C-alpha cells in the first residue's frame, strides 16, 4: 500500500468526484470490500453494480464517512470526507429509517436543510419554499402534509430524493434508489437524476437491476468484494466483466425482472441494512 502514502489529489487533480485508494473493510474475519481503488470521474451518471454481498453498500458508506474501521484512503471531490461533506448529498436505503417516526413529508425534506441552519435559526419561509420546490420536482407536491408512514415505497424514495435535492450538492450518492419502488416513481426519480446530471452534478448509485443499467447510467463500477472493472458503461459492461463480477451467479438478462422486486420482502432489505 506504498502508493497510498502519496496524496492522490496531487496527481489526479479535482477531476475525480469520488475516489478510494486501496480501501479495505472487514467485518470480523470476512472482508466486505478488499483493496478497492475506485475512481469516479466528475459529471458521470454512475452505478455501482455487483452481486449480493459484494460490498456495494459498504463502499457507499465508506465514501460517505459512515464506515468507522477501514484501511486505505477516501476522497470526495478531491478532499477529505469531513471537508467535502457539505457538497455531497446522500439518499439512504429506505429500510434504514423508522417510517413510523412522527413526521410529515415536508418535515423530512426540511431535514436536508438542517446542516445550513444553526441551532437558533428557525425554519423560515425561504426554507419551506425551497422544500416545496424540491417536492414539486419529484412529483410529491400534493403530499407535503402526509404522514411519512402512509406513503408507498416509491413515494418514500421520492421524498428522500427531494431531501437530497434541497442540499444542492455537487455529488449525489444513492443507496439502491430503485429497490422496492413502483414503476411511476422509478421514472420520476430517474428523470430528476438525469436533470441533475445534465447540469453537471455527479450521480453515483448502488444499483441492482442489470436490465435498466444501460438505460439510466453512463458509468459503471463492477464490484465483487474486489473492484472488477470500472469506466464508461459502454466499454465496461462486457460479458467477461459481468462473468468476473457475478461468477456462476450471473442472472441471464432475460431472467431479471424488468423492475427489480416490486415490493421486496422487507426481511431481505433489513438483512442487507443490518450488515452495516
Amino acid at each position: 500500500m506504498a502508493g497510498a502514502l502519496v496524496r492522490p489529489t496531487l496527481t489526479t487533480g479535482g477531476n475525480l468526484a469520488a475516489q478510494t485508494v486501496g480501501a479495505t473493510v472487514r467485518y470480523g474475519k470476512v472482508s466486505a470490500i478488499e483493496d478497492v481503488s475506485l475512481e469516479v470521474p466528475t459529471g458521470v451518471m454512475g452505478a455501482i453494480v455487483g452481486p449480493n454481498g459484494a460490498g456495494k453498500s459498504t463502499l457507499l458508506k465508506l465514501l460517505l464517512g459512515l464506515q468507522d474501521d477501514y484501511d486505505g484512503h477516501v476522497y470526495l471531490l478531491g478532499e477529505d470526507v469531513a471537508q467535502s461533506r457539505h457538497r455531497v448529498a446522500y439518499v439512504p436505503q429506505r429500510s434504514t429509517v423508522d417510517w413510523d417516526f412522527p413526521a410529515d413529508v415536508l418535515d423530512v425534506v426540511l431535514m436536508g436543510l438542517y446542516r445550513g441552519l444553526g441551532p437558533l435559526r428557525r425554519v423560515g419561509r425561504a426554507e419551506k419554499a425551497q422544500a416545496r420546490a424540491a417536492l414539486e420536482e419529484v412529483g410529491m407536491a400534493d403530499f407535503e402534509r402526509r404522514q411519512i408512514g402512509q406513503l408507498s415505497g416509491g413515494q418514500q424514495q421520492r421524498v428522500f430524493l427531494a431531501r437530497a435535492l434541497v442540499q444542492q450538492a455537487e455529488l449525489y450518492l444513492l443507496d439502491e434508489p430503485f429497490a422496492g419502488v413502483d414503476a411511476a416513481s422509478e421514472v420520476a426519480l430517474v428523470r430528476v437524476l438525469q436533470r441533475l446530471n445534465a447540469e453537471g452534478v455527479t450521480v453515483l448509485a448502488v444499483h441492482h437491476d442489470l436490465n435498466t443499467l444501460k438505460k439510466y447510467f453512463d458509468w459503471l463500477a463492477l464490484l465483487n468484494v474486489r473492484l472488477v472493472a470500472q469506466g464508461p458503461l459502454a466499454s465496461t459492461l462486457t460479458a467477461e466483466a459481468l462473468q468476473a463480477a457475478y461468477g456462476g451467479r450471473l442472472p441471464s438478462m432475460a431472467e431479471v425482472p424488468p423492475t427489480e422486486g416490486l415490493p421486496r420482502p422487507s426481511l431481505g432489505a433489513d438483512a442487507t441494512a443490518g450488515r452495516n
Partner: protein
Amino acid sequence: MLELLTDPTVITVSLGALMLGLTSGALGTFAVLRRQSLLGDAMSHAALPGVVIGYLVAGGRSLPFMLLGALTTGLAAALLSVALSRRRGVKSESALGVALGTGFALGVVLLSYVQRQPGAGSAGLEQFLFGQAAATLRSDLITIGVLGAAALLVVALLFRPLKLVIFDPHFARANGYRVQLYEAVSTGLLAIAIVVGLELVGVVLMSALVVAPAAAARQWTGSLTGMVWVAGGIGAGSALLGALLSAAVPGMATGPTVVLVASLVVAVSLLVAPRRGVPVDGA
C-alpha cells in the same frame, strides 16, 4: 374541593408532579422513538448501587451525594448497554437487560455490605427506590424545576439535530452530525429526569412516566414537535390529576395513582385516537 385546591400540601405535591410529568413526558418522547422505552427502567434499577455508594462516600444519608451517585451509576448502566448493543447480534433490549440486572445485583451486594456496618444510618436506603410522591418538599420543587427547565432548554436548543439523528442516523452522519454525541445527550437528559423522579415516585413508576405520555401522544400527533408538546402535556396532566385524586381519596398513594391515570390516558388514546400512519404498499 376548593379547600383541596388551596391546601399548601396539595399545591406542593401537584406542582412537583406536574413538573416531573412535563419533563419526563417530553424527554420520554425521544427515548420511545429511539426504541429505548425501557432505558428508564434499566437506569432506575441501576441507580441503586449509586445511592449506596453516595451514602458510603458521604458517610451518611446525604441527599446530594446519593442523587449524584444514582446519576453516575444510572449513566454507567446506559453506557454499558450502549457498548453492548454495538456488538453484533446483541439487541438493544438484551443490552438494557444486562445493564439492569448487573446494576441491581451490584446494588444488592453493596446494600448487604452497608447493612453489616455498625451504624444505624444506612436504614432506608432501599426506600429511596420506592419513592414517596406524597412527601414532596418545597426544596424538591426547586430541584425539579431547575433541572427540568435546564433539560427542556437543551432539548429546545438541540431539537433539530436530535430529530435528525433519531429519524435517520445514516443521513445525519453523512451530513456531519455526531450521532453518538446527540444520543448521549438524549440519554443524559433522561438520566437526570429519572434521578430527580426516582426519589419522588420510585423505580417502577418512574419508568412508566417516561413511556406512557409519549406512547399516548404518538396516537394523537404526527409531528415530533407536536409529540413532545402533547407528551409533556399528558405527563403533566396525568401527574396533576393523579396528585389531586390522591389528595381527595385516603389510601390512594400518589405515585401509583399518577401511573394509573397515565395508563388510562394511553388506553383511551389507543382506542379513540385517529389511526395514525400505516405504511400502504403499492399505490
